[in-house]
Structure formats: C-alpha cells, structure tokens
C-alpha cells in the first residue's frame, strides 16, 4: 500500500527507468548503445534499475524449412528454363495453381445462404465429420454403422496427426511410433514436439527405386509389441511407392500378431489413382479385420483446399462407448490448442461431399488431376527411356503413384 503511494507521487518520465546501455522506446535508435539517464530522483527510494534486455537474447534463427526453401530458391532464380519440382501442391498444365470448380460452386452456395460464423463445437462441424468418415471407410462399413469411429475435425493432415500424437503421449506414454524411412519431413517434428519417441522402419530401396518390403517387415517385427506404425494410406510421400494389396495384407497380419496399432496418414485419397474407393482400400482392409486404428485425413490436395486447413482425425474403436471416450479426450487436447476448428473449409467439404451432383463433379475433376499426373509420368518415362542410352530401368516412374516421384538421383545430381 505504501509503495503504491510512492509510485503514484514519484512519477517522472518513463525514460527515467532506462538506465542502461540499451535505449528503447519510440525514439530508440536501431542498435545504438546510448546511456540514457533522465528524470528526477525518487527521494528516499532507490528504484531498482529496470534492465530492458529482451528475454529472447538466446533465441537463434531457426533453420529454413527444407521444402519451402526450394520454392524460395526457385522464385529467386532468373533462368528461363527453371522448373519447380519441389512444390507439394497440384499445378495445371500451365503450371498454375488450381481451384476446383466444385469448390467455387460450394463457396457461392455458402455466400448465398449467408450462414453465420458462430464457433463450431470443439470437435468441428457435425455434417463434415459425418461425410468425412463415410468417405474414408465407406458409408456401409460396420465401423460407421456401429458408431465405432471417433471423428474430430482438425487442421488438415498436420493438425490431425498432432491431435493423435498428443493423445498417444497422454495415454500410451511407453509406446513408440515407427515411421517409414523416408517419410514426410514434418512427421518427425510432430512427434518430437508431442514428445512421442519414434524410430524408423526401412521402406525405400534405392537400388530398386522401389519398396524394401523385407526390411519393412523385419523392422515392424522387431519393434516392441504395441507400437504405433505410421503408414501412408496411398501415394507415399515422398517416394510415391505404395505396397501392393498382397503386401498390405502381410503388413496387417504382422501388425495384428505384434499387437501394434496402425496409424494411417491419408493425404491423397482420390488423388493417387483417381478413385476415392481404391485409394482407401488399405485403410478399409485394416478396418474390416476389426482392428482399432488411427487415420489422419487431409483435403488439401484432393479438394485443393490447402490453405483452408481442413482434415480430420478418426479413431476406430471396438465399441461406441470407447469411441465416445476417445473423442472427448481428443477434444480436451484440441481446446487448449485452438479451441475449435475453422469453419470455412469444413462447410466446403460438407457441401461438396454431401451433395450428389457436386460429389460426382468432384470425382470427375479428381480423375482429371490424377490423370494429368499419370500422363506426365508416362511422357517422362517415354522421354527418359528414349534419351537415356544406358540400360537404366526408368519404369519406377510409372510404378510410383501420386504427386511425388523418388527419382533415385543423388544429391550431386540434384544440385
């Protein structure tokens, strides 16, 4: 109480406090070191000197993102013949980004309806959650029919993976996640920041430029029982190499034997082969065995909704009760992260997937996008085979699927 009186009466200019070599405030020079002692004394009280050094002295510059760095370098390059093969977003034949027609239609519908912008519930838009689970598992799947899936709308693939990772950390603190070698760069960041330990299983075979199936199986077998196995549902990023249906079946057998939990990342449903159902077949086959599993979904690529950040985390459980409990805990994780997810992308998806005409139109647009990529693969293969006089087998370009192709080029060749 006494101190507050002293403070009130002993008022002088705020600059009086800056007795330090660093000068701050509106008139501050940029990095000048000036002594600045101004103002009256405070009588009996010797004010402790407030040292205005930033708390963040020790904050070093973060390394550039390996993927974004490529695009930045591309932009800076002045060459006529430059090509950006780093970008993880669909481009048209004219190398332009592409907004799907169905998305434009959906947005116009939404504008006409003039819907409000109220908070979504923590778990997201109910209409979206319904269609996204059905799209993934198939509407007549027992897991849907029996209400055994906990679905929570999240911030695209990343956000879905993050919610699941936080859940794993909280409820399976002893467990480890196995990720493929290689995998999408951000997978490691997600598990690191969630403090979930991870290790790698062999996946890519540089000699065949294909799948190292034996290595994969060995490593999954060697992992401690009850590990989480991160699998790419289709169109593996970055290799473009997917297991065959037979290989998927063997992987599922092994996972069951080891009591592992499958954790699918599905970022390209429909975008890989052009067929939504075909691209979901790995997930569906696992679900149909009665396995409990995680699936992270993204609509960034297949609906071109990259920046709207729309996806979902789905947890298949053995009972509706378990699904309800799991969902409630996923919500508890989401609430202190962002409270509730963004509404716009969810409404677009709900409108497109939930409306038969738009849904069919979407399927057609997706076939065109996937078709263009397949077409390019074919032409690239033809060109390479023609021009390359060595006996190198370029067929991997055709066998790989989806947006990315692991070329087998080494770093020097890339540089």
């Amino acid at each position: 109480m006494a101190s507050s009186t002293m403070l009130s009466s002993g008022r002088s200019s705020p600059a009086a406090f800056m007795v330090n070599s660093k000068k701050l405030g509106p008139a501050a020079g940029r990095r000048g070191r000036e002594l600045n002692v101004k103002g009256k004394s405070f009588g009996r009280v010797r004010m402790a000197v407030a040292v205005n050094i930033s708390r963040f002295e020790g904050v070093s510059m973060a390394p550039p993102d390996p993927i974004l760095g490529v695009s930045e370098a591309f932009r800076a390059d002045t060459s006529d013949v430059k090509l950006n093969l780093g970008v993880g977003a669909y481009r048209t034949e004219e190398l332009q980004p592409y907004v799907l027609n169905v998305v434009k239609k959906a947005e116009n519908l939404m504008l006409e309806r003039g819907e409000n912008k109220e908070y979504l519930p923590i778990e997201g838009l109910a209409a979206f959650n319904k269609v996204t689970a059905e799209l993934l598992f198939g509407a007549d799947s027992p897991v849907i029919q029996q209400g055994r899936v906990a679905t929570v709308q999240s911030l695209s693939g990343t956000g879905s993976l993050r919610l699941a990772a936080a859940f794993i950390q909280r409820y399976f603190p002893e467990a480890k996640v196995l990720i493929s070698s290689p995998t999408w760069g951000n997978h490691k960041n997600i598990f690191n920041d969630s403090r979930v330990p991870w290790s790698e299983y062999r996946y890519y075979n540089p000699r065949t430029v294909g799948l190292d199936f034996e290595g994969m199986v060995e490593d999954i077998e060697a992992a401690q029982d009850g590990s989480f196995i991160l699998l790419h549902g289709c169109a593996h990023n970055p290799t473009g190499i997917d297991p065959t249906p037979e290989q998927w079946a063997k992987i599922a057998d092994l996972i069951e034997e080891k009591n592992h939990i499958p954790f699918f990342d599905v970022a390209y449903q429909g975008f890989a082969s052009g067929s939504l159902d075909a691209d979901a077949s790995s997930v569906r086959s696992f679900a149909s065995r009665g396995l409990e599993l995680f699936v992270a979904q993204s609509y960034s690529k297949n609906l071109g909704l990259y920046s709207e950040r729309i996806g979902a985390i789905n947890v298949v459980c053995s009972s509706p009760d378990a699904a309800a409990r799991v969902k409630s805990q996923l919500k508890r994780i989401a609430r202190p992260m962002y409270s509730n997810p963004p509404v716009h992308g969810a409404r677009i998806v709900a409108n497109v997937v939930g409306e038969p005409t738009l849904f069919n139109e979407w399927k057609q647009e997706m076939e065109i996008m996937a078709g263009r990529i397949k077409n390019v693969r074919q032409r690239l293969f033809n060109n390479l085979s023609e021009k390359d006089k060595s006996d190198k087998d370029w067929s991997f370009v055709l066998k790989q699927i989806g947006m990315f192709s692991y070329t087998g080029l080494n770093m020097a060749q890339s540089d």
Partner: protein
Amino acid sequence: MASSMCQGIIRNSRRAAALGRFMSTASWWGHVEPAAKDPILGVTEAFLADASPDKVNVGVGAYRDNNGKPVVLECVREAEKRIAGNLNMEYLPMGGSIKMIEESLKLAYGDDSELIKEKRIAAVQALSGTGACRLFADFQKRFLPDSQIYIPIPTWANHHNIWRDAHVPQRTFRYYHPETKGLDFAAMLDDIKNAPNGSFFLLHACAHNPTGVDPSEDQWREISHLFKIKNHFPFFDMAYQGFASGDPERDAKAIRIFLEDGHMIGCAQSFAKNMGLYGQRVGCLSSFCEDDIQAVAVKSQLQQLARPMYSNPPIHGALVVSIILSDAELKSLWLKEVKAMADRIIGMRSALRENIENLGSNLSWEHITNQIGMFCYSGLTPEQVDRLTNDFHIYMTRNGRISMAGVTTGNLGYLAAAIHEVTKASSS
C-alpha cells in the same frame, strides 16, 4: 467385406484370437476416461433442451443482436463477396498472411507506430486468441524453460488449460474484489511486487473475461511502473479491442501505456468478437524484440512451433480481416459496426441496472455499469444461479457471469425481475 473377414478368421488361429479380442469390448482405449464436460458448453446444451418459451441464454460468449440472433457484420459479408471463388487456396506461409499481420499490428499498436516501422515486432497469424496464447506459451516453455506464468483470479478457464498443456507452471495474482465487484488493486500490486523479478504476467488488455473489471488508465500506469521496477514480462490477451468501449484506440490504451514505458510486451489478438469471425479462427501473436534481427529470429521460432501443430494457418478469416482493415471504406464501416455492438451492450447494462433498481432492490447494482465488455460478474452465488435456471429458465455459468450479449429489450424486464427475486432475500 464379410467374406474376407471369414477367410481371415480361418486362416490364422493366432490372428483369430487377436480378432476376437478386438471385436469384444476389450480395447486399447479401456483406460481412456470420458473427459469432463466443458462448463460453458453445458449451459448452452441445457438451454437448447429447455422447452420453456421464457427461456433466456445469458451464458453465450458470442454477440447477439437485439433479437437474440448471431450477427455477421456487413463489412464481413462485403469482404467475403470479394473473396468467394476467386483466389487460389495455396498454403499461406507458416507465419500466416503478411498482409493480415501488418494490419493487425497497426490496429493494436497504432497506424503510425514507430515500433512497427523499426520492424522490432515478431508477429505471426494464429488460431484466434487461443492459438496465439498457446504459441506464446509453447515459445515461453522452449526458450525460457524455467519461467512460469502469473494468471489473474479469475480468468477465462481456457487460459489454465493452455499454459498447463504447454507445461509452463502457473501462479496466480489477485484481481477481482468480490466485496466491491471491482478491482482489488492493492492486492494486485502486492502480488506483482512479491513475484520474483522477471516473472511473466498474463494481463487482459480490456474487457476482462469473466469479470468485466478493468483497471483505470491511472491504475494501468501504476501497474506499468511496477512492472518496470520488477522487470516483469507483460503478456496481453486482447480479445475485445473495439468491442469494449466501441473505440479500438481507446481499448488499446493499456498496451500503449506499456509501450510508452518501454516494455517489450507480448500480445495475443483475436478477431472472433470484434469482427464476429468466431468460427474462422483468426488472430495474431506479436512479441516485441530488441531489434529487427531478433524479431526475425523469434518469428522463425514461432513458425517452428506452428509447423508441427497445423503447418500453416487457415486463410479465409485472414483474407476477410486484411481486406476490411486495408480498405478505407470497409474499415470505416467496420468501426461503425463494432461501435454499434459495443453501444448495444452498454445500453443493456444501463437498462438492466435501472430495471433492477426500479424493482426496489436494496443491493448495489452499480457494478453492472462499472464493468465493461461482454460479461458482467453479477455477484450471484451458485445457488442463486441454480434458482434462476430451475425456476426462471435463465441460463448462465455458475460463477454468476452474465453475457450481456444475450440481453435484449425483449428479455430485459424478465431478467431483471428474476434477478431481483433470487437476490432480495440477501439484502438486509
């Protein structure tokens, strides 16, 4: 699908055992308990389930017009028309929309702020206020792992969740004075003084949630002085700029005072209420640094935290905000609309107080008009709140917090009468 399941069962007996286990009630998630229900959402659920024609929802933390309807601002609709179907939806940078960030900073710190020109502010687009606070909490944990956060009593419940999930230890400082239903200024200063030098404090820039009790300008100056002496870090949560007094400049006064005093503050901004963009999740986190180099480094680290959380923030709301704030006409329209919202609430405060007083209550109700922003900390006890709900179908959170946004000329009289009814026994 059924046949493949049968084949599976026949093929491998070990697998059959596993299958049986998963198909039974045994599950990986046996130890996962149902999470406690969110106290605020529970109120809305109960309200929706109530069939009474007289029911009133003053629990809702979102603006309602005088008909009790949610509002989409005209300036927002106009901005959306300009966006719809036109722009591509490429990923924003990890730090979000540069344009939106620029406009947010100008709004918070002043169009002509020297600090903005000096590029000393590390700022990223965030997932509304929650996301901004969370990024800061995670950043605090990573770079100052021994630090803790001082949080006012009371505060928005989710503040506790945010810093807890970021693993930053929490302390509290006294804030609300139940006897006066105002600010316990002496106790607040005491707690600020007694905290170790260099502590982190969470301050509500304006329209404190849930009490509606803000320090006066003079009091803010004293707080700022004390912070300088103690070298505390002020982190402002500004969720109601413009929405509190109707004037965004005025609502940012506390922040401006601290900046004049040379504090290097942190600030979480939200556009949920003042632009009605609740579900779009738009906000901004900013943190003042010594110089532009440090600001770039800090921003890069904030991005590193965002990347494994959601990669990059959603674009739609950011476009709306930057279009509105950068277009003179739209900004002017927005200022009118936000003032209208604030004025309606201020008007309802006066009217509610008047109504209760006219009913002959002996209690003091001046706190209704002294408090500011969306919420009124009524002083009602949990038992009185329960009576309001059970006898009068009036829904609010049990801490007695009334959302003035839910008050209309239509339900004003009824609400006043009910409040008087449940409190008159306590007046003596």
